């Protein structure tokens, strides 16, 4: 069975055709439980997200701030396994028909086996993978298998990326390009980095792939601002924080559904919702 890279491409192209940015949400698998995590993803799709990234919790999330670290800890203490991540992808995709990606640090994939991981992700209906600590130079084996299985390979670019390197990265990537809005780890910020728009422009000069901006976006106003120059707006910590702050699971699901709705308005420049 082939993965859903085409569904991802069509979804992002559809948003562009509507003259708006796509809303991409991030939630870790297994948080607060495996089933609860699946319900949370369904809720953000229901609220208006176009794409969801499922985080594979890691013991050493070097690129994540305290909010996602806390969620990863909860998921790992709950005993989450890669099979649970695959089930999360499968059930979230089957229930909604929407594109679902995995976001993971490299060591779990390396240890699990690239062939096995890509085959299982494609079989679960996954659309691709975001690999924030796998540099392009080390990615040949992954890309060979991802391509074979119909999975997108999403690379991250940063404000510090030089133009020549941007070209190298975007030439190797597929699906979309993840542009980090600022230099830092995940977490909500008062303002989205001023460097983001410049990075999107420099990235666009090297590729036709959609360029989506993540890191720091937490509310509709920020989403609207980013939607003014990017093809997609990626929001993670703000969703996780709503879940962490909720008194119980039902309240958490309602909170992330509401936030997705607000952000969906934001990516439409504040006009209407899906």
């Amino acid at each position, binding site marked *: 069975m082939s993965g859903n890279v085409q569904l991802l491409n069509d979804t992002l192209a559809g948003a562009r055709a509507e003259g708006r940015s796509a809303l991409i949400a991030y939630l870790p698998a297994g948080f607060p439980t495996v089933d609860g995590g699946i319900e949370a993803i369904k809720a953000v799709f229901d609220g208006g997200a176009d794409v969801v990234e499922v985080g594979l919790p890691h013991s*050493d999330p070097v690129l994540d701030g305290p909010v996602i670290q806390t969620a990863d800890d909860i998921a790992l203490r709950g005993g989450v396994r890669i099979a649970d991540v695959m089930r999360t992808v499968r059930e979230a995709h089957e229930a909604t028909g929407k594109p679902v990606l995995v976001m993971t640090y490299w*060591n779990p994939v390396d*240890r699990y086996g690239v062939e096995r991981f890509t085959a299982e992700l494609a079989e679960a209906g996954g659309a691709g993978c975001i690999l924030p600590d796998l540099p392009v130079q080390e990615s040949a084996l992954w890309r060979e298998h991802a391509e074979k299985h119909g999975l997108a390979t999403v690379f991250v670019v940063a404000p*510090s990326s030089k133009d020549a390197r941007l070209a190298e990265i975007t030439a190797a990537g597929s699906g979309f390009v993840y542009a980090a809005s600022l230099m*830092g780890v995940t977490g909500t910020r008062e303002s989205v980095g001023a460097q983001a728009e410049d990075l999107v422009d420099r990235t666009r000069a090297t590729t036709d792939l959609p360029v989506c901006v993540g890191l720091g976006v937490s509310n509709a106003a920020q989403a609207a601002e980013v939607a003014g120059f990017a093809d997609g707006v990626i929001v993670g910590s703000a969703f996780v924080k709503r879940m962490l702050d909720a008194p119980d699971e039902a309240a958490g699901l309602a909170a992330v559904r509401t936030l997705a709705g607000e952000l969906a308005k934001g990516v439409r420049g504040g006009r209407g919702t899906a």
Partner: protein
Amino acid sequence: MSSEFFIPDPEGRVPSAEGYFGAFGGKFIPEALVAAVDEVAVEYDKAKADPEFARELDDLLVNYTGRPSALTEVPRFAEHAGGARIFLKREDLNHTGSHKINNVLGQALLTKRMGKTRVIAETGAGQHGVATATACALFGLECTIYMGEIDTRRQALNVARMRMLGAEVTAVKSGSRTLKDAINEAFRDWVANVDSTHYLFGTVAGPHPFPAMVRDFHRVIGVEARRQILERAGRLPDAAVACVGGGSNAIGLFHAFIPDASVRLIGCEPAGHGVETGEHAATLTAGEPGILHGSRSYVLQDDEGQITEPYSISAGLDYPGIGPEHAYLKDSGRGEYRAVTDDAAMQALRLLSRTEGIIPAIESAHALAGALEVGKELGRDGLIVVNLSGRGDKDMDTAARYFGLYETDAAVAADEAGEGAEIEGDAK
């Protein structure tokens, strides 16, 4: 290279241009750090070729650190090692009390060359943190040290030293609250502050060029030891022995001996309560290849690539990774690695103190315990050089509790330490 004390690998055998030692090493870092890590590599290459850099570093190593360090024969200690001759390379006598200063001064000079004004570093036992805080005081650099919360308690003296030197010490409360988590937090800081900040990495792990660069700054240990043992004993040693956590003091001692096929290179990993108990940090003994903190090497991990929590009585060795060049030496057969328990290390610590009047760091005591074993294996004709990588002052609280040395709460301490605290006279 005209320098006497800054002696990068003249052969340039490994790593490759991509930073690989055989199958190990590389550069597994987020895109946000690529430009900064590349800058370090370029600046280090320039510095290596610049006689002025070597002159400045040499001057510091002689007049500030106190190099060369002594090579001390320890005959009363060696009586417990089957009669082999044992010499200690006295990195404990360096300024700040360990080998760490060799690398720190080199990277601090590099920081200035890069025009950066702030330095961050991780520390386990606090020795790298103290050395870094020292260099920052000397050069007028802003300094933040990340240290696992557990380590701030068991190495409280070094926390005070760092603060006295003007550094900010941040206790890291995530994960296992030890060295690995301190490194995670330092990486998070670096990603956010990379324009102003150099990450002064303290061991021969991390992304390329750190494993090769940190090794080069410590190569002086083995170069001196090799010359000194030839003068003193008239021949090369049968074995060079060092403790390994991340592996910086060990690679420093080993590297100059790699071409000498007759010299066994023996690294002593922390076996904690015993490798079989699962409570250890013996990465090369019990780990599997994987990626941690920017490079491929052996890693303590589960079957799905989650890093497992290490344990050692020694904060400086309590790390689930190991420098990639050690992984390469192990797989090629050139290096030998064995595991030494907490108890064996503590017995060796007390034995050296009582037979030679030298109190070693608990880290270095792992190498001493290994040398006692190796000496018995070699017999009376054996000749061993051990890297005494640090002094034990920082460990007196741990040792006092372990052996029940405090006047007031000896009974409590004995309870806490359990069976390991039973004193059976000198170690065998």
